[in-house]
């Protein structure tokens, strides 16, 4: 990765790894810009991960009241296994959006819905969306119009999300993820996965199999 192109406020990457040195340099804004393969280059995805969020209830209230300024996918990060898990839901939602197949109001609500293996939208929000008690929050915004830029999203989020920004990487996510809850949501209870107290987030076979099973469930939602 070309370090000279990365400033604290702007980080554009198509790779999965975030160099530790850069991650540490980030302070208030650690909003990542991701170009997902095969999706239109005009639709970059902005992602930020927060821990110890203090105002989840008020953020959720903005969603419920339909405040257009808060059109984000707010995901309870304890339901997210990895980057590939989160980005798979984004890929599915954006692809369905491009093909005019949205089942929910907009691409951002569709991202929350796309995490779900089942067809019930309200249930998908209960399981994967932000709750009043959410402490770890994954925020996703798709640039659906040219006005939505990295700077506009970064500014809006730093103003309204009260929490500490952490890197959106597999190491951090594996510390946040509630594997038992995730397995239950995807009805994968029979899968053997290592106990959550495994030393450092090594991607061993059981975890990998769980992740790949989850990707399959996301891809096949709604297939009859």
């Amino acid at each position, binding site marked *: 990765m070309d370090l000279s192109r990365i400033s604290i406020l702007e980080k554009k990457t*198509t*790779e*999965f790894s975030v160099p530790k040195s850069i991650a540490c340099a980030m302070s208030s804004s650690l909003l990542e810009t*991701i*170009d*997902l*393969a*095969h*999706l*239109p*280059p005009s639709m970059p995805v902005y992602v930020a991960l927060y821990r110890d969020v203090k105002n989840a209830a008020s953020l959720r209230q903005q969603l419920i009241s339909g405040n257009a300024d808060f059109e984000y996918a707010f995901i309870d990060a304890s339901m997210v296994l990895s980057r*590939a898990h989160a*980005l*798979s839901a984004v*890929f*599915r939602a954006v*692809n369905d959006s*491009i*093909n005019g*197949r949205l089942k929910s109001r907009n691409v951002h609500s569709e991202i929350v819905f796309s995490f779900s293996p089942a067809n019930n939208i309200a249930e998908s929000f209960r399981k994967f969306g932000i709750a009043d008690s959410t402490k770890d929050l994954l925020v996703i915004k798709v640039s659906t119009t040219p006005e939505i830029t990295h700077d506009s999203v970064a500014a809006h989020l730093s103003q309204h999300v009260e929490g500490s920004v952490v890197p959106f990487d597999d190491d951090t996510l594996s510390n946040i993820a509630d594997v038992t809850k995730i397995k239950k949501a995807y009805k*994968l209870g029979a*899968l053997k996965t290592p106990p959550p107290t495994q030393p450092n987030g090594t991607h061993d076979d059981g975890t990998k*199999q769980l992740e*790949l*099973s989850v*990707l*399959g*469930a996301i*891809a*096949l939602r709604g*297939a009859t």
Partner: protein
Amino acid sequence: MHTTHEYTPPPLPPPFHHHHQTTPANPPTLLTQGAEAHLYKTHYLSAAHPAALKIRPSKPYRHPILDRRLTRQRILQEARCLAKLVREGVSVPALYAVDWEGQTVTDADTGAERYGGAWLLMEWVEGDVVRVVVREWEGYMLRHFGDDRDVDGHVERKREEDRMKDFLRRIGGAVGKLHAAGVIHGDLTTSNLILRGTNLGVKKEGEGDAVDEGRDGLGHVGLEGEVVLIDFGLAGQSVQDEDRAVDLYVLERAFGSTHPRTEGFFAEVLEGYRASYRGSVSVLKRLEEVRMRGRKKSMLG
């Protein structure tokens, strides 16, 4: 998007027609083109996830409604099998994404709208197909021990044959795991099995000397690694002895015609199968019946 190249691969359905400047592996490269599907190499999400893209194009000679229904049914069947087998821990490429609805594509010449076919994105499995591995091994054996296959007592040769037998038992074990999960492959050949991680660097026509990373300094062909089953385009769910036995029979016949010099070792595949799950014994018994009469049970079709 018309260019004046000598050969233009079939147009990719959305979203794969976007060409990112920033992602180096784009656009997807065409690998094979069969009657039912086109296979491309590309990646999913980012270059960190190499992927195989299988496209089932529409068939213009079919009635549009029937075409859509058949294409949808078949791509979904394959996707469901892959997803189920990953959950069951069987070695197959993982399902990344699938679009069974297909897209409406606007014809560049006429402006008419038509059905663009369905697609499936799955994990890319790096390695050589078993057909190549066995063929390379046969070549190695021929070069080192000659054509006299009846000479016994050659320690070196015995060791090579034991390695091959172990490999074949692992193939049988992989098929057994598949059947134990309730899935029938439908087209088991040595081209639909990959030995993960191998890279024999087999020369293709027109290429110079290829690198032989799959061989050690002595030219041994690597036979270690995980056996992965691929191409579930004709797969289905069944736990019937008959269907399982036909899977084995197809593999046996394919093996015999592709690898005549190794055919004598096929019993090792069945041995590996026998040991892999409960219920294998009655399937092997059924296989003897299938051998007597051929693949088709009914005399119809």
